[in-house]
Structures are given as structure tokens and as C-alpha cells.
């Protein structure tokens, strides 16, 4: 099975890449052909300019070719695009696990300065108001839960 991971950190530093020395690090613009040469790739702050759909397509392509990938980012929306999330505090792993399980540790993440993805934060707030019971990641399900 291909592993797909997002790494966020309280302060991103390339030193964390030492823990993933078997991965090829991508820090600048790349082509699909560049990626397919390697069994494991790390995107280091390089996907931020891409739209979510483009990133999803890219990750699907990597999965199709059985390439493991890690996305290192400060963009909290991108964490939902992988199944596993690792949070570093400087150079130490602080929490890791399935993405939604890690995101449930809302208070700790906020204390670290890491925001929740918008749909997760909105769902949690709507839960506080008693309007919904679950976390909804897509607009259609949220709308159905709220109005139907």
C-alpha cells in the first residue's frame, strides 16, 4: 500500500527531512516525469500555489504508480488530502496518526499555532451550537445535515 503523509510543524525547518533520507526531496517546480523516477518523494513547501484539485490529481497519479509521498506544508487545508498526519514541534514528532484523529486534538493544535482545516473547524463549531453531530468535509453533506 502506498503511504501518503502530511507533515506540519510549529516552525518548518529542512532539518526534519533528515528523518526521511530514503525520500527524494522536491523543493521547486517539477514535472510528472520527474516524480515518477523515484519510489518515494517529499514535497517541501512546493504545492501551495496549486489548486486543491491539481494536488488531488497529483496524489492519485502517485498512488497509481505506487509511489510513497509526503507533503510538508504550512497550509492547514492540505492536511485533508492525505490519510496520515504528523505534527512536529521544531524537530521532534509531537503527534501522529490518521488525519482526522490528529485533528480532533483541536486545543493542542491551536496552542501550537496550527489551524484546523476550515471544514473541520466549522463542523466543530456547528457541533457546539448543537446543529450537527459529525464532521463534514464536503459542502453537500454539510448542507444536507444542516437543512434536511
Amino acid at each position, binding site marked *: 500500500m502506498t503511504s501518503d503523509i502530511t507533515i506540519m*510543524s510549529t516552525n*518548518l525547518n529542512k532539518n526534519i527531512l533528515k528523518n526521511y533520507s530514503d525520500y527524494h526531496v522536491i523543493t521547486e517546480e517539477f514535472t510528472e516525469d520527474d516524480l515518477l523516477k523515484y519510489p518515494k518523494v517529499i514535497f517541501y513547501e512546493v504545492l501551495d500555489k496549486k489548486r486543491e484539485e491539481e494536488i488531488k490529481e497529483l496524489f492519485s497519479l502517485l498512488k497509481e504508480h505506487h509511489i510513497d509521498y509526503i507533503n510538508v506544508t*504550512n497550509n492547514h487545508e492540505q492536511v485533508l488530502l492525505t490519510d496520515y498526519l504528523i505534527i512536529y514541534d521544531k524537530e521532534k514528532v509531537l503527534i501522529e496518526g490518521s488525519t482526522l484523529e490528529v485533528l480532533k486534538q483541536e486545543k493542542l493544535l491551536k496552542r501550537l*499555532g496550527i489551524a484546523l482545516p*476550515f471544514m473541520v473547524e*466549522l463542523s466543530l463549531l*456547528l457541533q457546539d451550537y448543537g*446543529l450537527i453531530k459529525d464532521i463534514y468535509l464536503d459542502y453537500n453533506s*454539510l448542507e444536507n445535515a444542516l437543512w434536511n
Partner: protein
Amino acid sequence: MELKDILNEYGLVGVISTYKFTLDKEKRVKDLHIKNLDKALKMVNLEEEVKDKYLSVLSLDELFKIDLISKLDKDIIIVGNLSSCLNYKEREFIKKLLLKLVNSYHKKIIVIDNDVQLFFNLVKLIVVINGKDILYKTKDFYDDNLYKYTKVPKIVELVKYLNKKGRRIQETTDIYELIKDIYRSVS
């Protein structure tokens, strides 16, 4: 109208474009000749020990902050990559600092980023540029034309989605305002 004229009118402008740090990464922070370095470091929450570090080993947030303080003596400050260099907490801190620089020290600031969400509660005008050409400008975060050039923030996307479904939600960039409006709508 040129960007300089826009700056004179607005003081702090958000620009959709790409930004590359131009600092010499072979240098140490203390070799950059930053005025009142100790005070400047304190202002951006950096420890004194950063002074002896080479720029090449700085973390992204440190690099951003050094880039910023290296320009504090200029009338027009251009900063970029806030969204990719800083975590949420640091972003909010720097946004407050930029507003203070404009409001209290009369600096003019251009913030370059690709993430429109960063400009919420920061700029009154967003400009899209390509090289030196101004392609588009708007004050409206819900302006569809803006998103021909960049990603739509989630809150904008959701409100537009709900309104297409006839839910009559107010256009807002504040999650708490959105919650209140949803609450009113479903109750």
C-alpha cells in the same frame, strides 16, 4: 494606475503573485546590516541567538521575519510568502505587526501571496500582477473574477455554494459570522 499610486491611496495592498527571497543565504543574520538589530529581532519574536546563524540554516518562519526586518528602514516594504512560511498563530501576529507599521509608522506595505485568505482583515485592496503589469484589482473577496487567477478560500467557496442552493447566507470572511447566519437560517 501604477502600484505606487495604489499604495499611496491604500497604504497596505495585497498582491497575488509569486515572491522569492532575495537575501544572500551565505551570510549570517548579523552581516545583513539591519538597523537596531536587537530591537528588530525582539519585535518579530526572534531570539538573539539567531544573529549568529547563517540564513541557509534558518527555518522558514525565521527567514520570513529576517526578510521583513531587513526592510524596516524603507518607506515601501515588500514582503511575501507569509502563508507558506508561517503557521496560523505567527501569521496573525505578523498581520497585526504589518497593520501597526502602516497605521502608526506610516509605512506602505505590499504583501505578496497566492492565498487570498491571508488578506482577510489585512488589506482593503487585492491586486493581481504579472511581472509589472496589473491584471486585475478588487476590494471584494467574493469577486468571481479574482478567482480566475488564484485559489478560492474555503469560506468563500462554501458561502457561494450555499447561496447557489438558495440558502441566502451573507457574504463574510469571518467564520463566527457565518455560524451565526447559518444558525439563523436553520432555526
